[in-house]
C-alpha cells in the first residue's frame, strides 16, 4: 500500500435543484494522501459534494478528476473508491466476513486471496476474529469498523467518509477520530471526510474546506482556519467565539469610543467584527502595550469541569450593548483568583490574538 494515493481536482462543480443551488461553482484540489474535511452546517452542500465525488449525484456542470482521469461521467461502480456511509450501510443479510469480502467477490478475487485480504482488513480496524459475527450482533463502534474494513479491503486510492462517527457517543467518537486519523496515515489513502462537527474537523484534518450555501468559503489548515477565519460565518462556526462589532476608518479599528489594535492590515473602511476566542482572554492587572483591553462587569460564571466560563457585560458607555465570553482554566491556582458575579474586571487580549473579519451583508 505504498505511495499510490490519487489526487482529486474538482473544478467549477455546480448542482441545482430547481432554483436551489446545492453547489455553486466549487473548485477544490485534494493532494494525494491528504486528509481533507468538508465542513459545514446541515444543508450546506458538503454531502452533495461528496456524492458528486462518489458518482451518486451528477453535477449540472463542472469537472472531477481522480489523478489525470476525468471521472464526472463515470458511474459509481467504476470509480474504485472506498466509501463509508453515515449509517454504515452494512449488508444485514451477510456476516462480517461476507460484508468485508463483498468488494473482493465482485472483483473476482479468488477465495483464498479474499480470505487473506479480509483478515488483513479486519486486523487493520482491530476486529480480528469477529469475521463470523452477524452484523446485528455488533456494537455501533464495531459496525463502524466493519464499514471501514469493507471500504479499504480492495485497497482503493481514494476513501470517502460521510459523517461516519455521528451515530457514536461522544467518548467513542473522540477515540475513533484519533484512530481514523492514524489509520489514514498508515494506509496513505487520499481521504475526503464530511462532518458538521467543527471540533472533529479540527482534530482530524490536514486541511478543512468550509462549505456553506453550496459554496467553498475557506480552504486551509485547521490552525489557520481557527486563527484567521476569512469571514464572520466561519469565525462563528468554528470554535467558540465572541464577535464584537467594530468600525474601521483610515486603517484604525474602534470599538465604541475605544481604539483597537489588530494583527492584520485593515485597508478597507466599514463595519467589522472582532473575533475573540474565549480562551485567549485574560484578566489584566495592568494595561500592557501588546494587548487590547476591555472593561466590564462579570454577569455570569459557570463551572464546566476543565474550565470556568464567564460572561462579561462590557461597559455600555464605552462599547455599546455587547458582552464577551471568557474561558479560564480550572487549575487550583486560578480558582481562588476568579472574580465573582458582579465584580468589575479589566480583560486583556493580545494583539496577535486580535483578528477582524468583515461584517457580512446579507446571507454569506
Amino acid at each position: 500500500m505504498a505511495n499510490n494515493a490519487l489526487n482529486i481536482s474538482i473544478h467549477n462543480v455546480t448542482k441545482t435543484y430547481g432554483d436551489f443551488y446545492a453547489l455553486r461553482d466549487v473548485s477544490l484540489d485534494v493532494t494525494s494522501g491528504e486528509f481533507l474535511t468538508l465542513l459545514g452546517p446541515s444543508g450546506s452542500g458538503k454531502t452533495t459534494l461528496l456524492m458528486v465525488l462518489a458518482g451518486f449525484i451528477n453535477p449540472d456542470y463542472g469537472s472531477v478528476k481522480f489523478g489525470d482521469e476525468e471521472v464526472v461521467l463515470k458511474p459509481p461502480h467504476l470509480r474504485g473508491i472506498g466509501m463509508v456511509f453515515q449509517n454504515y450501510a452494512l449488508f444485514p443479510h451477510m456476516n462480517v466476513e461476507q460484508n468485508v469480502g463483498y468488494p473482493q467477490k465482485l472483483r473476482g478475487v479468488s477465495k483464498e486471496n479474499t480470505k487473506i485480504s479480509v483478515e488483513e482488513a479486519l486486523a487493520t480496524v482491530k476486529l480480528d476474529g469477529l469475521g463470523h459475527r452477524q452484523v446485528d450482533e455488533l456494537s455501533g463502534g464495531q459496525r463502524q469498523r466493519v464499514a471501514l474494513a469493507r471500504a479499504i479491503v480492495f485497497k482503493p486510492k481514494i476513501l470517502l467518509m460521510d459523517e461516519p462517527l455521528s451515530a457514536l457517543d461522544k467518548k467513542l467518537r473522540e477515540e475513533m477520530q484519533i484512530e481514523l486519523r492514524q489509520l489514514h496515515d498508515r494506509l496513505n489513502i487520499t481521504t475526503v471526510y464530511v462532518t458538521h462537527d467543527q471540533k472533529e474537523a479540527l482534530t482530524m484534518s490536514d486541511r478543512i474546506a468550509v462549505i456553506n450555501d453550496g459554496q467553498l468559503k475557506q480552504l486551509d489548515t485547521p490552525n489557520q482556519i481557527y486563527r484567521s477565519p476569512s469571514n464572520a460565518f466561519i469565525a462563528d462556526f468554528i470554535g467558540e467565539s465572541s464577535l464584537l462589532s467594530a468600525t474601521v476608518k483610515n486603517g484604525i479599528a474602534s470599538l465604541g469610543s475605544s481604539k483597537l489594535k489588530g494583527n492584520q492590515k485593515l485597508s478597507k473602511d466599514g463595519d467589522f467584527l472582532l473575533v475573540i476566542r474565549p480562551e485567549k482572554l485574560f484578566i489584566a492587572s495592568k494595561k500592557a502595550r501588546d494587548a487590547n483591553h476591555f472593561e466590564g462587569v462579570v454577569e455570569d460564571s459557570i463551572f464546566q469541569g476543565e474550565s470556568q466560563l464567564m460572561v462579561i457585560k462590557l461597559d455600555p458607555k464605552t462599547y455599546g450593548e455587547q458582552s464577551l465570553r471568557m474561558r479560564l482554566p480550572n487549575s487550583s491556582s486560578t480558582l481562588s483568583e476568579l472574580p465573582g458575579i458582579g465584580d468589575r474586571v479589566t480583560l486583556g487580549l493580545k494583539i496577535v490574538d486580535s483578528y477582524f473579519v468583515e461584517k457580512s451583508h446579507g446571507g454569506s
Partner: protein
Amino acid sequence: MAVLEHNINEVSLSRLEKRENYTFFGLTVPYLVLVGAMIIIPIGWLFFLSFIGRDGSFSFENYERMINSKAYLRIFLTTFKISLLTTFFCILLGYPLAYFMSQISRKWASLCMIGVLIPFWTSLLVRTYAWLVLLQKKGLINNIAIDLGIITEPIKFVHNTSGTLIGMVHIMLPFLILPLYANMRAIDSHCVKAASSLGATPVRAFWTVFFPLSIPGLLAGSLIVFVLCLGFYVTPAVLGGGRVIMAAMKISSNIELYFSWGAASALGVVLLVVTMIILFIASKLVSLDQLGQRR
C-alpha cells in the same frame, strides 16, 4: 422507617401494576368472545360433523371418500395449481411495481398506492363481474380485437383456467404489493449505494443486495396470496364458469346440492389443516409478524 415506607410503596405499586394488566386484558375480551363464538365453536362443530356418516353415526366415510374418489384428488390438484399460478403471476406483476414504487419519492408512491388500493376497496363481486363483461365472447376486449383485425374469432378468456387466473391475479395483487412495498421501503437505500461504490454494477447490486433484503416481504406477500387463494370462492366460481372447480366450490356444492354437511365439513377440515401446515412451514422461513406490520 425508610424500610417500612419502601414496603408500603411496593405493595401499592404491585397492586397498581395488576390493575393495569387487568385493564389491558379487559380490552381484548370483546374480540376473544367474538372469536370464540363465531370461529372456534363453529369450526369445532364442523370438525365434529366431518366424522358423522350419512346414517348419523360416527364414521370416517367422509374422509375415506376423499381418499378414494378421483374427483376429490382433481379438485385438490386444481386448487393448488390455481393458487400457485396466481401467486406466481402476482409476483411477476407485483414485484416490479413494488420495486418501482419503493424507488420513487413518497409523494408519487402514495399516488401509485391509491391506484393499487382503489380496486382493493371495490367490491369483490363488482370486480369479478367486471372481468366477465370485459373478457366474455362478445365482451369489450374480444370486440375491440376483432374490430382492429388482430383476431378473427373471439378468444375464449372466461369459463376456463385463464379467466379464473386473470380475475384472481387482479384481486390478489394488492395482498402481495402491500407487504412487499412496506418491506422494500424499509430497505436502507444506502446499502445499494454502498454496493455500487464497492464496485457492483446496478444489476449486480440489485441481485446481491436489494433482492435478498426484499425476500421477507416477498415471502410474506406470496404467503397471504397463496393461502387466500386456497379458500377462494367467488372469482373462480364466476370466471371459471363451473369448469374450474376449487375446494371452496366443492364445499359449497356439497351443501347446496347434496345437503351433505359431513362431506363439506371434512373438505373444510382438510383445507384448514393444509393451510395450517403451510403457515407453520412459512413461519419457519419468515416471521409472521411481517404479515401485519412494517419492519
